[in-house]
């Protein structure tokens, strides 16, 4: 029986050598860009039921990105919790999965921002009249997916308009997904819910007329492509290619094709500053 | 091979237990082949017989730990375990069986002490939990009983810390603590040395004098001779011969009994 030695980590990270490509040597040599995605976020990325392959806005964008970089794109399906570890351990080269760029997260990874997302309040159509001004949410039960950035934003909203303003606090009902939040609206356990605008638009197509957006959008946070912290070669290459996509119109075509004009933004490295 | 059962010898006193044509099968094995027997109130009956002849099984049927195939076993004016409805014998509801069992005590061949309780706890379990005696007076009586069988120093020992003979005595004390009307002993002296056999004999004679009815399965002929009012010899699931110790042990009428007893050392 041979002994398996596990060599301990000693800090050595990417040693990028110079080459013709903008990409780090390893990626350029293999000719494949491995992209981590968690297909739980329609319409950004989700599984097509018939083909069982990942489709969505992010997929279209990253494929265009790959063409610009001159590499093949290989999408690696992973759970949401695993995505960032995979960048860390080199299991994937980048992650593109509707992740919001926040100052907190920038401490561990770099973001190339590419999509201006915004959260929306929505409720059953019959209840829409009850929510006309920000304070109407106070004291109500609000369902929100705990995996999204909106969970945190709603808490800030609460501080600003409700609990912080001397009114009764919003009752948060964290759910596993946006779908689960809607189920609570339906049963009347939650009065109002928050979800990404792109997400809402997608479901409007499915259950037309059942839900209605209310109040204004929550503060917009950009989605970013995740790159290993400090890997400036990679982030630089991605940013450059993204900008090229914007320039040649591919970017805008993809977003407007999905009905997301509001999300168009200028690509930038670590755009969020808080 | 088996000899037809003799009709029961009529007993001096009114019978407390009466078995009528009791048959019992284990699968295809016909273990009890028509037992007819009467035991008078206050009588001590010893059951002798070769290994596998069905002695333990018969005792267990009396206590309704085994169902029977056909026949009736009476305890007083009730059929044990069954209710006669016309010509049918239907098993009684559990509550009634429990009531009937309370009139009977039993010492098992393998003792079956409660391993998670000390000697004294084993003895008082029945009086306290079944008869509702106060824990205090049960402990007093239990201690007394255990002292009587020579275990005053082992009150707090668990069964596995006791030697074979000590366990057997705890089992006897446990059965006596219930103050039953009928006692069923399955080889109560198998693990005992001659001295203790003598002591248990004394205890049993006392009990007999106080009117307790006993059925005792034993292999010790000497013991049977001393304690029994009558002796029954079983073989092949039948009672071959029954009578006073003098009749059965000293001048057996049947060949089988004679052969069996001739081997006593």
């Amino acid at each position: 029986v041979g002994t398996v030695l596990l060599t301990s980590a000693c800090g050595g990270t990417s040693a990028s050598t110079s080459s013709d490509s903008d990409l780090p040597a390893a990626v350029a040599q293999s000719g494949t860009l491995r992209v981590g995605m968690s297909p739980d976020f329609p319409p950004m990325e989700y599984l097509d039921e018939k083909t069982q392959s990942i489709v969505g806005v992010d997929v279209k964008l990253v494929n265009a990105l790959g063409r610009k970089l001159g590499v093949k794109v290989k999408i690696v399906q992973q759970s949401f919790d695993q995505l960032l570890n995979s960048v860390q351990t080199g299991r994937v080269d980048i992650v593109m999965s509707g992740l919001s760029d926040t100052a907190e997260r920038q401490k561990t990874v770099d973001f190339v921002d590419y999509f201006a997302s915004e959260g929306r309040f929505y409720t059953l159509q019959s209840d829409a009249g009850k929510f006309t001004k920000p304070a109407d949410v106070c004291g109500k039960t609000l369902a929100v997916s705990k995996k999204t950035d909106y969970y945190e934003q709603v808490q800030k909203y609460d501080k600003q308009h409700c609990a912080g303003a001397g009114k009764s606090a919003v009752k948060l009902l964290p759910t596993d997904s946006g779908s689960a939040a809607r189920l609570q609206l339906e049963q009347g356990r939650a009065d109002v819910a928050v979800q990404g605008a792109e997400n809402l638009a997608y479901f409007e197509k499915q259950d037309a007329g059942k839900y209605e957006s209310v109040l204004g959008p929550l503060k917009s946070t950009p989605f970013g492509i995740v790159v290993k912290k400090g890997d400036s070669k990679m982030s630089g290459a991605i940013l450059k290619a993204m900008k090229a996509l914007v320039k040649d119109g591919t970017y805008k075509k993809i977003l407007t094709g999905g009905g997301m004009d509001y999300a168009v933004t200028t690509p930038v490295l670590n755009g969020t500053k808080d | 091979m088996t000899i037809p059962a003799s009709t029961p010898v009529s007993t001096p006193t009114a019978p407390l237990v009466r078995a009528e044509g009791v048959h019992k099968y284990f699968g295809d094995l016909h273990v009890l082949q028509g037992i007819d027997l009467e035991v008078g109130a206050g009588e001590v009956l010893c059951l002798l017989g070769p290994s596998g002849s069905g002695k333990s099984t018969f005792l267990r049927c009396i206590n309704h730990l085994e169902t029977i195939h056909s026949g009736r076993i009476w305890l007083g004016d009730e059929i044990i375990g069954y209710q006669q409805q016309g010509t049918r014998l239907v098993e009684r509801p559990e509550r009634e069986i429990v009531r009937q069992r309370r009139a009977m005590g039993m010492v098992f061949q393998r003792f079956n002490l409660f391993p998670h309780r000390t000697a004294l706890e084993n003895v008082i379990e029945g009086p306290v939990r079944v008869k509702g005696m106060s824990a205090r007076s049960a402990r007093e009586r239990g201690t007394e009983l255990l002292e009587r069988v020579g275990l005053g120093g082992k009150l707090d020992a668990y069964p596995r810390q006791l030697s074979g003979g000590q366990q057997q005595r705890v089992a006897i004390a446990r059965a006596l603590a219930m103050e039953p009307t009928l006692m069923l002993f399955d080889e109560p002296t198998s693990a005992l040395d001659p001295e203790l056999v003598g002591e248990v004999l004394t205890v049993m004679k006392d009990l007999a004098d106080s009117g307790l009815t006993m059925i005792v399965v034993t292999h010790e002929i000497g013991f049977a001779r001393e304690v029994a009012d009558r002796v029954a010899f079983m073989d092949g699931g039948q009672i071959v011969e029954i009578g006073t110790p003098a009749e059965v042990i000293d001048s057996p009428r049947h060949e089988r009994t004679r052969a069996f007893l001739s081997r006593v050392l």
Partner: protein
Amino acid sequence: MSAKSAVKPVSRSDPPSTAEEMLTEPRRHPGRLVGAVAVLLVAAFIVDSFAGAQIDWGVVRHYLGAGFLIRGLGMTVLLTVVAMVLGIVLGVLVAVMRLSKNPVTSGVAWFYVWVFRGTPVYLQLLMWFNLALVFPVISVPGVYTARTVDVMTPFVAAALGLGINQGAYTSEVVRAGILSVDEGQTEAAYAIGMGRLKTMYRVVLPQAMRVIVPPIGNETIGMLKTTSLASAVGVTEILLEAQHAYYVNNRIMELLIVCAIWYLAAVSVLSVGQYYLERYFGRGSSRPLPRTPFQQFRAAVGRRSVSR
């Protein structure tokens, strides 16, 4: 030691003994029919409520045949089998180590159980999958070297994580089983010249199995469901497949019900296996073995034996 004659002596005027021909009959239970009817009524009410609920049974029917869910089920079952085999092997080993008199051996076993029972399996899965964070390279010097991320595929990470975690739980079950076997059995085995090891696998473990099988059945069925955590490391088992579908179409309850039906099917198969295992290891126990359905069928069709 008085013997109060609470019981009256047999009355002499009883009818003459005709008992020889009197067969006994088992107890009758008129309450059972009433109970059965009540149970059926309650069941009917529940079924009716669900049928009328806001659940689209057409969707359930549709997805019941969906290939991707069945493929997911296959992965679930495969992972369950691999993880349970690993878990049982480790569990028996660790249980025996735990009962060892050697303090180093029993200490290591204790520590293993403490750590792996003590930490969430979700974390353990992520740890194995991301082992590269700690050990970037796995190597047998001079023979084999590989990047840890290449070795730790999702399936390997999931099987290792679930199996090693299961081992800790199984070892406790096995330990309880071993403790349930009478010490006299060990002594009897020693007395016929068996060593510790042979005693364990020829005498103690076969008897312990009677006590071990039902909790292990629990653990196996639990594992069937726990494999869904493997989705954290990218194994596409049935629940993840269902989630992917309901993220898209919102049919949460319907898809979960489809999963439940598949799980139930798998559990039923496992339960049958458990039933036969229990029968096998229950041989020689004083309780009569329940008849197998097959035997029951034969008995119902064939002639009745004369004895009971």
